[in-house]
């Protein structure tokens, strides 16, 4: 009982998909414009700074998702990529007199290559074993920075050249917003491509994917490379917006953990999830500080609240905030975002 001629069966499904994608793209463009208009509505440099940092968190969470969310391989090693990116930008500007654009490009490329190499070594491990293998990565990087102190300037870190750092807070905001839009666009391109579908197939069932002719190694290593490259880029942007860096700050394991938490709370495996997670995770403590509920970010009370939220999500909405919406009957089945 065919309702459609044979050849249009797939075409109709594809056309429907394309219509939905167009809706998302136009909505996304609208939101991008709003993002650029936002500084007009912020009253002072401090608020712009908070907004900039929020965008950084969102960008990092999306970068993490490009590999871990899509492939299902949870990485606890992204702090290493983040810190390395910060150091590459820092050292390139401080020691080698490179401009910001060149330094950030270098962060992107070098960390991308480094992440691919890490993937080459560790991605033979499946599932949890990979997660465990990535745990020590940031710590190893920190030790390397200490060890190479004559070049890296060691434990105390260093400041970036003043002529590079000294920019209006709003400029930093616009640069950060631009790169957030870039990484989201790349994320959407991956998610809606056959490459993205292959990554998700690996997440769903790696053995079945391989049996269909998908190369798990090539797919995973390339995804980790792309994810690492963007994480490194945001690391570089972090160094630039902060103006200084220390190994303790940029290689802190909390970076990795927070990326995992943001993505899971927002909706692991989706692209909107880490955006929601990053927004909530970074803005909420600011609001709480404003209202004198907590004294500082990573206040004990706040960390306890994060823990409780995480438990609640795990118990009642395993797919996270956006993930749960996407699995509900209000969302068109199989439309990934």
């Amino acid at each position, binding site marked *: 009982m065919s309702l459609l001629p044979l*050849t249009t069966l797939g075409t109709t*499904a594809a056309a429907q998909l394309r219509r939905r994608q167009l809706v998302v793209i136009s909505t996304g463009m609208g939101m991008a414009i709003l993002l650029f208009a936002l500084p007009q509505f912020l009253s002072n440099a401090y608020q712009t700074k908070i907004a900039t940092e929020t965008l950084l968190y969102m960008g990092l969470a999306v970068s993490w998702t490009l590999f871990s969310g899509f492939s299902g391989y949870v990485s606890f090693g992204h702090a290493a990529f983040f810190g390395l990116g910060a150091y590459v930008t820092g050292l390139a500007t401080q020691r080698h007199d490179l401009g910001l654009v060149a330094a950030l490009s270098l962060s992107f490329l070098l960390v991308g290559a480094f992440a691919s190499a890490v993937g080459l070594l560790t991605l033979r491990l499946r599932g949890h074993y990979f997660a465990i293998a990535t745990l020590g990565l940031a710590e190893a990087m920190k030790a390397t920075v200490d060890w190479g102190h004559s070049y890296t300037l060691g434990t105390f870190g260093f400041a970036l050249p003043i002529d590079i750092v000294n920019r209006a807070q709003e400029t930093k905001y616009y640069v950060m917003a631009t790169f957030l839009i870039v990484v989201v666009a790349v994320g959407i391109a991956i998610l809606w491509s056959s490459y993205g579908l292959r990554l998700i197939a690996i997440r769903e069932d790696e053995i079945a994917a391989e049996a269909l002719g998908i*190369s798990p190694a090539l797919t995973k290593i390339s995804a980790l490379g792309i994810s690492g490259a963007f994480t490194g880029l945001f690391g570089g942007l972090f160094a630039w917006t902060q103006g200084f860096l220390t190994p303790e700050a940029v290689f802190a394991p909390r970076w990795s953990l927070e990326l995992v938490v943001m993505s899971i709370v927002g909706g692991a495996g989706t692209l909107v999830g880490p955006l929601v997670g990053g927004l909530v995770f970074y803005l909420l403590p600011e609001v709480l500080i404003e209202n004198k509920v907590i004294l500082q970010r990573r206040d004990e009370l706040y960390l306890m609240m994060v823990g409780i939220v995480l438990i609640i999500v795990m118990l009642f909405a395993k797919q996270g905030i956006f993930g749960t919406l996407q699995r509900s009957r209000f969302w068109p089945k*199989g439309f990934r975002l």
Partner: protein
Amino acid sequence: MNSGAESSTDSGRAGEVVLELIKLRKSFGGVVAVGGLDATVHQGEITGLIGPNGSGKTTTFSLITGTTRADSGNVLLGGEEITSWRTHRIANRGLLRTFQLTRVFPQMTVFENLTVRSGARRVTRESLVWELAEIVGLHTKLDEYAGALSFGQQKLLELVRASALQPSVMLLDEPFAGVNETMERHLVDFIQHVRRERKCSFFLIDHEMQLIMELCDHIYVIASGSLICEGPPAVVQADQATRQAYFGSGFIAGARR
């Protein structure tokens, strides 16, 4: 290169050899799982691989698809040595398999399951996958999550997904296990269709003797990793060693009908 095939083509098997196993051997810590197995699959044939539990059938499939490394021996696909190749490379060369317990991608829709290998853009232009989906009635379920399908429908989806890639050989690991008789019919009809229309050869494991006898052109019987009998269904049914090793003494052909 085809020396192994020569010895086993004496029973008048039609078609060229598409898959050939030569003295394939694998042991796990002293236990011989597959002990020097010779077998061939011919163009357009449905070849059966039967034997008691633990006789090495699934291991044989794993050795062919590269999931498990053989200790020794060779696997030739269309005359080409594929013995130490990686699984995905073998799949891309035209040898696909299905699994004993289905392995669809549960949180992907049927549409995504069917387009994951070739990419949606290309597949939408090709009608083969939709033609096959329509034959088994999956075309009305394109938007369903594969995990929400019944077990039998998942088996069909797995078969359609693989067939649409136009393999030259498909290995089916217990395609009829755990499905009802109606679904069994669907599966048999679909396999026959793909064999006839898409010129695909099949190598299948199953315990449903009636179906094996009906479907297969040639059957290999193994026990403890060694070949104990081979031939067309009638020959295998008449074989004493096979009866003892596998069917039990009470087996009478066609008794279930």
